[in-house]
């Protein structure tokens, strides 16, 4: 899975590929480095994610809880169709802030 931070909007991070248990630690480390540099708000672009499993969903939930506990912002942007289906079936979409927006130029 590729992880890319938007140069024009540092709070926007795009994931590309399969988001599963093997990738959760990488995303955690990436977000931690962002926080250490002072970037606490996080917008996760999932438009290019082809698959999420329960570990990935747990990562999203954990990011959301951390943001709430620390008065920061966490949003899921433009989830792909396959991700949207999973979020709806599990009703986790009711616990996240999900936005469908125009893409931010890199």
């Amino acid at each position, binding site marked *: 899975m590729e992880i890319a931070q938007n140069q024009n909007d540092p709070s926007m991070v795009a994931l590309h590929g399969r988001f599963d248990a093997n990738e959760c630690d990488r995303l955690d480390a990436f977000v931690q480095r962002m926080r250490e540099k002072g970037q606490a708000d996080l917008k996760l672009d999932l438009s290019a994610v082809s698959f999420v499993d329960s570990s990935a969903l747990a990562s999203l939930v954990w990011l959301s809880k951390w943001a709430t506990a620390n008065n920061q912002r966490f949003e899921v942007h433009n989830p792909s169709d396959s991700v949207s289906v999973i979020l709806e079936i599990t*009703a986790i979409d009711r616990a996240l802030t999900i936005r469908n927006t125009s893409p931010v130029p890199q």
Partner: protein
Amino acid sequence: MTAETLPSAEASSDPSTGSSAGSAEIGRLRHQLEELTDAHVLANEQFLALHRLSEFSSASLDPEVAVKRTVDEARTLLGAAQTAYRVGGDATSPNPTLSYDRGDGQTALVVPVRSDDQYFGVLEVVSSPRHRFSTADMKLTEALCNQLAMVLKLSTLHHEAIERTIIERDYNTASILAQAALNRPLPVVEGLELATFNRPARAAGGDFYAAARCGDGLYLALGDVSGKGLPAALIMSSATSATYSAFERCSAGTANVALSEIDRQLSSYLAETGLFITIVVAYVDLKQNQIQLSNAGHSPVIITQDGKATNSYADGPPIGVLEARTHGSRSWDFNPGDMLFLGTDGCTDQTNAGGALFGEDRVTRLIGNLGNIPATEVLTRLTRDVDEFAGDEDQIDDLTAMVVRRDPEGQDK
């Protein structure tokens, strides 16, 4: 000593000069002989020292033993006055073999002991005043250090292998204990056929199920802890206990109350771990011909009625996502011949070599097309189809399923 150096008979026969010249020559030769003898003895000792170093046994894997042997044999091999091994030193320095004059006629060698990218320490050797170290001594010391590094590396690998074996053994034991939570016998209820299947993707998994009689009906639950492996299995064990506890506390026909009780028992624990559990609780009421479902984020949940399969979706997010809450429920008719299928994403998320998913639609079609076959056969067919789809691909997630079928008309006892 050569023939040319031997004293000639003519020189020793001179009465005025021959005896003193001859004595000096004899003295010189004797000195040479002593030096040669010393050199021979030293060479023999060095040979024996090299032979000892080449001997290898399991005891020599002990780092302290290996270091002591090297230090002792270095002293013998090099004729050194002092030898010492020091842990630490400058690990970033290039591969130096330093030789410097200490100002008292002695020389010293400081050679790093390293293996590939692992640095262990340095061997320091100080020469005796009679023997200054040469280039050959430097090479010999390097060889000694390379051998010591090899032994220290082997020792490290040996201990790491032992630790891994211990961890693996403890992991397997913990997995067996965690999976034992699923070993309760299934209840028997007249008019119902109940079957379950569980196959973790690793030694232990986070899927669980529970079934208990309550009144004239039956409580069922099937759940999936997010994540995989032993961490999920440990939470699964707690979740199974909480589920059976809730079944005992709740009166018949209140699937949503049972789920709310499970949520209450587990929510704080889940908040600490950062994990969640998708779970569906069902109450099968034979008197009312109904099945009540309370679903927190779980799928697939499929009801077949008159041969038609319908998915029942979640009423809310999994437990652990939000704070403990009161859950809702839905009721379905459950008449003779009808079937309830509960599964986990181990079947829907299974991929094949081409990367395609087995998918929820495929599961629903399969369940809908099976007709009135026994509950155990439903599970056999499902797992067979999932395995055939996967081919040589590894099992991607824990696969668990539960089927309850109401006996067809006329067979109710």
